[in-house]
């Protein structure tokens, strides 16, 4: 089965207001699924000031995924978009920590923590 439609990932974007987009990733981020993540984040990054990448429901993160996260961080810096990750599980935390990438990102344990509080 080589059909690309049958992959183990879902990536959805939700616009909170004119400035903020939340991208929610569900499933496994690997060499097979990483193109879909890259494409969605590229599209959304072009039209926001603040991007929240919610990885709470990610069940695998390998170096293909870590490389995309590094790309996204560079893109955010050069476009002056504020970027943060939502990640609490061992599955996501551990690869970020092992590679030292955890220090390069702003990471919140829950989506609520990542969103600006409305007064």
């Amino acid at each position, binding site marked *: 089965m080589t059909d690309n439609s049958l992959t183990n990932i879902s990536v959805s974007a939700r616009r909170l207001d004119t400035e903020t987009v939340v991208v929610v990733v569900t499933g496994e981020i690997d*060499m097979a699924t990483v193109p879909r993540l890259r494409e969605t984040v590229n599209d959304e990054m072009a039209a926001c000031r603040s991007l929240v990448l919610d990885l709470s429901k990610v069940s695998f993160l390998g*170096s293909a995924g870590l490389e995309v996260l590094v790309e996204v961080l560079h893109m955010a810096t050069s476009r002056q978009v504020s970027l943060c990750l939502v990640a609490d599980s061992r599955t996501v935390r551990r690869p970020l920590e092992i*590679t030292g990438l955890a220090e390069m990102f702003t990471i919140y344990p829950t989506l609520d923590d990542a969103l600006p509080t409305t007064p």
Partner: protein
Amino acid sequence: MNEHQSNAEPVADVEMRIVALPWHLSAVRAVAADLAMRADFDLDAISDLRMAVDEACSALISRAVEGEVLVCRFDVRPEQIHFSAQVPTTSTAAPSRESFGWRVLTALADSVNTWVTTGESAHHVLRVDLVKKRLGKVPQ
């Protein structure tokens, strides 16, 4: 792929053969996690083996001759799992040990090795071997 049946290599506990495509990585990771869990690895070690196996197979798949088969073998012992994978390739060069992927791999596994063998056929064979110990090194 008859050399895998030769006397030189003992039968692996589990051997998987898949067309060398990224779509199949998930099935290999599933077996890695299942074996590590039953060999009583702790959650971090299970997670590390799963990542290391993914890393090794991703490197092989990205260098495989199109349509060829990736062969993976798991040897499970009480204190360690030995994983070995190989694929036909056109290059005689092994993956760079300076790459990000390779550094992740060496951080995760207790030992890693990669080499190319030149066979009788038109293609060379690229191989990656790694060992993850049940109570091995803890990354970072």
